[in-house]
């Protein structure tokens, strides 16, 4: 038996750490990793609520999130490698061609 808020707090900590990482990092791969942290926080919540309300659908959606995360990493890394090939750097703050 685990108190539900305990799990939710952990997930909140994980999520805000991810937010910090996305905002403070400039290396593209590190930004992607921080996004993974946030996705994991969501997954923890899904699994916890799935146990709380006795519905296995939460776990199923956690699996879906994992699959989508894998797809996202694949595409993300392809983009990062493309940027590296064109600019010799993967700092996301230097990719500002569309900024005004």
């Amino acid at each position: 038996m685990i108190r539900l808020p305990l799990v939710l707090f952990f997930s909140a900590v994980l999520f805000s750490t991810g937010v910090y990482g996305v905002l403070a990092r400039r290396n593209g791969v590190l930004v992607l990793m921080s996004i993974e942290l946030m996705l994991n926080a969501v997954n923890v919540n899904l699994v916890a609520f799935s146990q709380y309300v006795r519905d296995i659908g939460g776990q199923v959606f956690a699996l879906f999130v994992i699959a989508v995360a894998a797809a996202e990493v694949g595409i993300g890394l392809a983009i990062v490698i493309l940027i590296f090939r064109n600019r010799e750097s993967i700092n996301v703050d230097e990719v500002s061609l569309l900024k005004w």
Partner: protein
Amino acid sequence: MTGQEYAFVVLALVGTVGAVRLVTAKNVVHAALYLVVTLAMVGSIYLVLGAEFVGWVQILIYVGAIVILFLFGLMLTKAPIGRESLDNQQRGLALLVALAVLAGLVFLIQDAFHWGDRKMNLVHNTTGEVGRSIFQHYVLPFEAVSFILLAALIGAVVLARREERE
């Protein structure tokens, strides 16, 4: 506190330390290894919560494949070492935003589920139950996810492929 809660707290603390070190590490490969720690801890938390299949899939997909992909990307892009080259100038602002998000979430959770009130009685969910649920109730989302994976596969190949030169 019950034994399961102690186990959970230990795993969560290690996972949190890993996550914090991930966003502050000075070396990108070390950051990836801290990510491994956090992901493994999250996987163990799934096991504690009784979601056996999700836990092992987490280890298999995240630790076994996604982090390796990250390492591959890091080694291919020769990422520099040192915090200055890995962080941008808005570190203080980022910290502020992250703390605000954390405070907001904690307040909301506290507000919605009063501390110690809501308890989960953990039951062990077998792989069979998860499988039945996917293929009986969630077939359409399942198909959508496989379509996304296919699109991602093709997209990644198209993106990363070098242009053919004559």
